[in-house]
């Protein structure tokens, strides 16, 4: 990946950039995923991206929901908050507002992020906090044993849709466009190198960045298998080096592509949109954490408040 993409972050880190290597991210835990699960590729790509960005494990904080994919933060050593199903973005926003020095990354499943978590998703998109959202989109509910998910295709067969799902699948890219997401990319777990690059670009992007990741669930989703994806994916950059990801119209068109051809890469990016934090004057003076710690040492004048009520 291009060197220009890689710049060390500031943050609270005391480690030197050159000291960051992938071994630091080694978790003591063994994964519980099925052998062959696409989540392994996503884990590898995420580690790679963090290292590539020169971030130490304490510079980042990974928030996840509940699901197979949401167990990811247990399998790399990093600050992490494995929250409840569907709610990762809300927790992530709280963390980001409290300490914007942390690189906050939300990792969710498709059910997690696009299904039950839909309301946080759409409102986070329009708020644009500087959070990267990696969605392990296996088009199925993995951990609960294979029910159809919001990205399952029309006709998908499962225990709760034995005659085929009759819902239209969510198009997360189009949704992001409509809700003002400022960065939207798609990756594929079987191409972790490309995916790592997507994640790096997403983390470097200032604002809410969505990385929708095609992820085979080898146990339950026998339609959208590794082969199925491989036959369809192509890289936007490779096909059209002039693709302008800042062009809303082009991105909207690209967002519609699905089925026979599925684009990978940065579909949309608006580097000009200010982040939520950037628009809070308070946070320009430091992190809320610092202000709160100062407040706990109590060098504010509270006595004067009384006069308001006299």
């Amino acid at each position, binding site marked *: 990946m291009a060197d220009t993409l890689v710049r060390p972050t500031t*943050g*609270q*880190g005391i*480690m030197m950039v050159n000291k960051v290597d992938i071994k630091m991210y080694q978790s*003591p*835990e063994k994964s519980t995923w099925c052998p062959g699960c696409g989540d392994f590729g996503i884990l590898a790509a995420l580690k790679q991206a963090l290292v590539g960005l020169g971030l*130490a*494990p*304490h*510079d980042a*904080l990974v*928030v996840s929901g*509940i699901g197979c994919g949401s*167990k990811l*933060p*247990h399998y790399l*050593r*990093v*600050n*992490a*908050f*494995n*929250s*409840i199903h569907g*709610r990762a973005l*809300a*927790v992530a*926003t*709280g*963390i*980001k*507002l*409290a*300490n914007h*020095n*942390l690189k906050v990354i939300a990792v969710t499943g498709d059910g997690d992020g696009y299904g039950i978590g839909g*309301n*946080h998703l*759409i*409102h986070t998109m329009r708020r644009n906090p500087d959070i990267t959202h990696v969605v392990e989109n296996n088009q199925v509910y993995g951990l609960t044993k294979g029910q159809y998910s919001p990205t399952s295709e029309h006709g998908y067969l499962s225990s709760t849709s034995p005659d085929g799902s009759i819902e239209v699948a969510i198009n997360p890219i189009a949704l992001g466009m409509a809700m003002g997401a400022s960065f939207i990319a798609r990756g594929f777990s079987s191409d972790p190198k490309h995916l790592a690059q997507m994640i790096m670009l997403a983390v470097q992007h200032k604002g809410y960045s969505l990385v929708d990741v095609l992820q085979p669930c080898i146990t339950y989703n026998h339609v959208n298998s590794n082969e199925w994806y491989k036959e369809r994916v192509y890289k936007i950059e490779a096909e059209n080096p002039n693709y302008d990801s800042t062009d809303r119209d082009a991105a909207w068109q690209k967002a519609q592509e699905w089925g026979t051809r599925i684009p990978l890469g940065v579909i949309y990016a608006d580097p000009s949109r200010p982040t939520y934090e950037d628009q*809070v004057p*308070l*946070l320009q003076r430091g992190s*809320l*954490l610092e*202000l*709160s*710690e*100062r*407040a*706990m*040492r*109590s060098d*504010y004048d*509270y*006595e004067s*408040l*009384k006069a308001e*009520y*006299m």
Partner: protein
Amino acid sequence: MVQVNDINIKMGGEAGQGVESSGAGFVRALAKGGLYIYGLQDYQSRIRGGHNFYQIRASEHPISSFSSNLQMLMAFDNETVTEHAHELVEGGAIIFDEGLKFNRADVDAGKVKLIAAPLKKIAKEVAGDDIMANTAALGVLAGITGYEISFMEDVIRRNFKRKGQAVVDANLAVVQRGYAFGADNHAADYQWKLQPMPNPKQRMVLTAHQAFCMGAVAAGCRFNAAYPMTPGTTIIEWMTAHAGKYDILTKQTEDELSAILMAIGAAHAGVRSLTNTSGGGFDLMTEALGLAGMTETPVVIVEAQRGGPSTGLPTKTEQPDLEPVIHAGHGEFPRLVMAPGNVLEAFHAGYRSFNLAEKYQMPCIVLTDMMLSTTQETIEPEDMDFSQVKVERGEYISKEQLDAMTEEWTYLRHAVTPSGVSPRAVPGHPKAVYITTGDEHDERGYITEDPPTRVAQMDKRMRKLEGARQEIAKPTLHGPEDADLTLIGWGSTYGAMKMATDILNAEGIKTNFFHYIDLWPFPAKETEALFAKAKHTITIEQNFTGQLARLMRVETGCVPNGKILRYDGHPFSQEDVVAAVKKEVNING
């Protein structure tokens, strides 16, 4: 038989008629004169129209309740007369605009004076706009009660300052004309008078929600996420109004789930965090409450109760959420529940909630209600002592301590300790890189299903309640130790029950009053001690099922001799309590 500085005034009208601002203005004028004030508000769940009122009680002595007996009714509309004329005592008066046509049959003319005042006319004549009729009304009120007009004038100067001198002057002229009308025509035959105290002491007049916020910011709370919901909204509105001065970040969220989860996120990151809501919004927070319990994240939730169930009575007062908040959330996890009963208790709850939540690393629910959100009380400024507010963080590992650590990898976020409290570091430091999760986990925070580990973590979490139990605010006792009658209550009934206790004692019924502030973990020992001595106990609550009585029974086995329950959406006045108690014990007063 002139009575000085002991009056109850009710101002009523439609929403949008300025009842609230008139009431607030008069309250301020009285407080400036050194009087104690109690200001009760009542409004409907609509923006214009309907029936609202503001009831002011003023006295030279501390007061903590409104009275059912009015000496003055200021009617901005007919309905005020219909609804409230019967509350007037003999000799009481109704002030109304001469143009108001109400049903004269609603008023017992032999008992009550009717003061038809040219309010709109004055406003029109003096200021060219009848919009200032309310100002005229306040003038009339001051004139009739003989209250020095300069206090009203000061309030007008202060309130209208930002609208420019012309508006100030016009209002001053109107209030003076109103004053003259009242003083000249009706002062003589009205027996209740108001007068400033000599060298009036300046006291604070505020709501419990405001006081809570003051305690909270003093404790270092700097994040407040919420979704608007009456009567909780006044919290985030206060925090937002004071955000600039105190470096607070407030966030209106997409829903209540997000509100508590953002607060949990921010708290996890190290910032003292608050969310506020009412019952319906709290319901939506239930799942996240368990997450806070499991991840041991300190977070404070103000649940301002209102009439339930469901959307219920959105602007009315009730106490129906005590058992619901104690048991909210599936599974078993520790929490704190406190229910301040007045302005000062709310101030203390403001910082105590954050200290206890952080020391014991668990969510703390502060139960308030419509009354505490809107009712104004007078306190002595010295009682709100910010210098006494201490920030207690418990087992918090500072950055400096982390820097000094030699080993990496040793930090155990959920270490099993004798107290159950595990030293807590916030993320961002290389010596304390860790995960936490709402799944059952081991000491490091990794998911586990191992039975002994599970049991150890469960025991550890629940053990924290024993420490917390030592530190909660104990119930208070008001009145004689050896009373014949013991009234028992919690939360916002405090004021009325206290004054009712005094009245009962004055009437020779030896009564005391046991008031709970903190309710979970439950102060069982104190309850048992009370019951060991009490002769006849009566719980008084604003709910249907008698939830405090239930809680006492399940936690201690103590059962009160009687229960007084109210659930019509309206608060108890001191007289309501007295009457209900007498009825309960068969005393005909």
